[in-house]
């Protein structure tokens, strides 16, 4: 066990955990931030996606010891009041079915949208292909991202 200082959604936390513990479980079980989901544990599904210094990162594959001083952003901290364009259009387009994978989908898209403000369908397919949705909401994810892209500041 060791102490790690993490900055999550702008708040500093000191956690006493084993160095190999994935960030996912630190967020969920130690800090109680359950918006980030466990889906597969092997980096195949993207449900656990968070941002490290703005870059989409699979938190199930990121040992807490590797986070360093990077700022961690989870779905709870993406915006204060849920008004990120992706969140707005996700609601508008009724993307979610069960909703379980959607936080990961949104965090993943929010990260790459900054660098790709005008994505084509092909861009979206390529950049979002790491995020699984068993309910099959993909078409609407594509539509919501395209609608939101117009409002995302690069």
């Amino acid at each position, binding site marked *: *066990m060791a102490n790690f200082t993490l900055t999550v959604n702008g708040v500093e936390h000191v956690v006493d*955990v*084993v160095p190999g*513990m*994935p960030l996912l*479980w630190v967020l*969920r*079980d*130690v800090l*109680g*931030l*359950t*918006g*980030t*989901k*466990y*889906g*597969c*544990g*092997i980096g*195949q*599904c993207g*449900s656990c996606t968070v941002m490290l210094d703005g870059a989409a990162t699979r938190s199930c594959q990121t040992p807490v010891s590797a986070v360093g001083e990077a700022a961690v952003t*989870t*779905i*709870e901290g*993406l*915006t204060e009041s*849920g008004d990120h364009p*992706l*969140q707005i259009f*996700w*609601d508008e387009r*009724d993307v*979610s*079915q*069960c*909703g*379980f*994978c*959607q*936080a990961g989908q*949104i965090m993943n898209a929010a990260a790459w949208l900054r660098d790709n403000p005008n994505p084509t369908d092909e861009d*979206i*397919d*390529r950049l*979002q*292909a790491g*995020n*699984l*949705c*068993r*309910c*099959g*909401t*993909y*078409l*609407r*994810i*594509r539509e919501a991202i395209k609608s939101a892209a117009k409002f995302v500041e690069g």
Partner: protein
Amino acid sequence: MRKNGPFILQRAGIDPVSGEQYDASDQSFAGSGRESYTAVLKYSRRKFLRNSALFAGSAFVLGVFTGCRKEELPAVVEKALPTGTAGEAAFHPNVYIALNESGDVFVINPRSEMGQGVRSSVPPAIADEMEADLDRVHVIQADGDAQYGNQNTDGSTSMRNLFDQWRTAGATARVMLVSAAAANWGVPPEECEAENHEVHHRASGRTVGYGELASLAADQPVPEAPAFKPRAKWRYIGKEIRGTDNRDIVQGKAIYGLDVKVPGMLFASVEHCPTIAGRLVSYDATAALAVPGVRQVVEIPVAPMLTGFAPLGGLAVVADNTWAAFKGREKLVVEWDLGANAAYDSASYRAGLEASAAAPGIEARNVGDVEAAFASAATTLEAAYYVPMLAHAPMEVPNATAWVKDDGSCECWAPTQDPQTARATVAQFLDMDESNVTVHVTLLGGAFGRKSKADFVAEAAVISKAVGAPVKLTWKREDCIRFDYFHSPSAQYLKAGFDADGKAVSWLHRTAFPSIQSIFAPGVTHAMRAELNLGFLTVPYDIPNMLCENGAAEAHVRIGWMRSVSNIHHAFAVNAFAGEMAHAVGRDQLEYLFELLGPDRSLNHFFPESGPYGENLEKAPYHTGRLRGVLRRAAGEAGWGKVRLGPGEALGAAVHYSFGSYVAWVLRVAVEDGQVRVLRADGAIDCGTIVNVDRVRAQMEGNLVFGLTLTFNGDITVKNGSVEQSNFHDYPLLRINEVPETHVHLIESEMIPGGVGEPGLPPVAPALTNAILAATGKPVRELPIRLA
């Protein structure tokens, strides 16, 4: 007449309202269909205020009771009224509405939300009839309790069973609110009308809000058979309604089972025996206990073959966090006796299934004289089809939080489709009276039938009892795949005879697959009638000689129902064979399919007692006209026979009836170098009256993806009794880049609502394989598709 009722609103966790008083004179009974009757009950206001935290502050509370047959009703009422609990099970309240003096409306939703949209469909159904403002209707999720009626959220039943009941509740409330306003103003109720959370008296220009009327309404008599609004006046039903939980979901605030937090809870994960019904011989937990954060390793009895919903058993690692529990499991040294099922191997099992389907089985339907027709047929065609085992793989793994308390009670939080069965199962394995068990239902991160089974809930409870603390149990993804209640592997054999014009004159169909009944009863060798009714005995083709037989098959793993159940393999074989028949006689697939369906007619005679899905056949006959309708629509929208196709491209069609609804898919594919790409999908659904338009579209879209996943990828195999797949790398789901352009077409209908969660799935696979047949001339007889 004032008597004590035996009803309880909601059990532990919230103050019970046991002993609630109500006026017997305040009951009315309204017919709602041929089978069941609906009763509306008004709760005494003061009692409610005092006893119920759930509806705290609500002045006006209605319960709607259903599930009793007309002829049973007087006895049910008689039994239910006297003090005591004798009648408790007899009445089945399915929904409650409450209105407080601020005008907030609360509705209890008895069914589980797993993405199908029930939490977004109850409010419009009730609000419309109540003339309530939808924005002021709040959904409360019911705990598992028999008094909510059947809460089992499967079989695509929520709307089918409850639409009229919800509307009855809403209409009752509206009439009582109007009566209250009229009485207050001293005018006849006929002069008043309810509109958008207010009652108006146009003649005098007076208006009063629902909140102000709440107390007065509670004193009004319950109307008998309140009239429903005419369809033309529906404001919410059949319109686009935003998802109830959308905002919580996109902000990470929605609570799934996996997100439950209970003070002081520990985290557990279980190492199961790799085979079903094996035995734990010995183990060494020393290394596991040395993992930082691991507190305890608990042995759980391994379930016997007849598993039902028994916890699978094995070694539970209990820790300070989920990760430590997972790591602890890796350090366990375990010796298992794999038992008799270690001999189970998918390859040899398949050979047995195919042999079973190739030989005569138990006759399930026999019309005309098939053998004579084959003997005199101009030509015949035979084909054998195989669909492997499939896993549900919801994004949220099985998990549950349980707390066995010092006072001998147990409180559970679980993503369960069937909280009543979860409650009973927990009680069974804790050897506890069911009344001491509470099951709270969280949101479900996908389910598809997996979370109907209560094994994981009982497992959490057993672990909590062993460690004396609240425990959150989490299955690893690997556990979810390996220890599923699998969709049956199946082999089918079909033979058709044709006359000289290529018209089908005889049809022989044999199906063999392990029954879902195998988890409940010993020695099950054949399918239940209910399973055969799923696409096997329901074949709608107009062929004079038909013989359907069921072959033997035993189970060596846990078999369970998965989205649309046996419809998956039956619709595949039946539609794929229809495609092959057209191909064999050189006819257009679509035109031939229409010929097979024959003239518009009711097929109710297939089911002398009741419909295969519990539907009301009198109100909604199983009808080929509706099959033809969806097929015509999907094919037309896809441009069948008109659209210009590129090289290697073709269209394929399939149509199927299930759960009271009719769905056709037409898929356009391109086959190139043995690679299949789906370019476009057109799906048409006729599900009768549509309550929530957007959720019907969403279920069609989702079923397409679910169907393409199983068609391209779905394959669970077993070697030495152990499942070979474990996670999304070897049990892959469709990804966003693999989804075709999709068009969903809704048939407008005033028929009673049909199911929506499942019917979109069965025709997907055969529409795809029929397109491949059309593109390549080669039939696909096995899933997942593997083109040579």
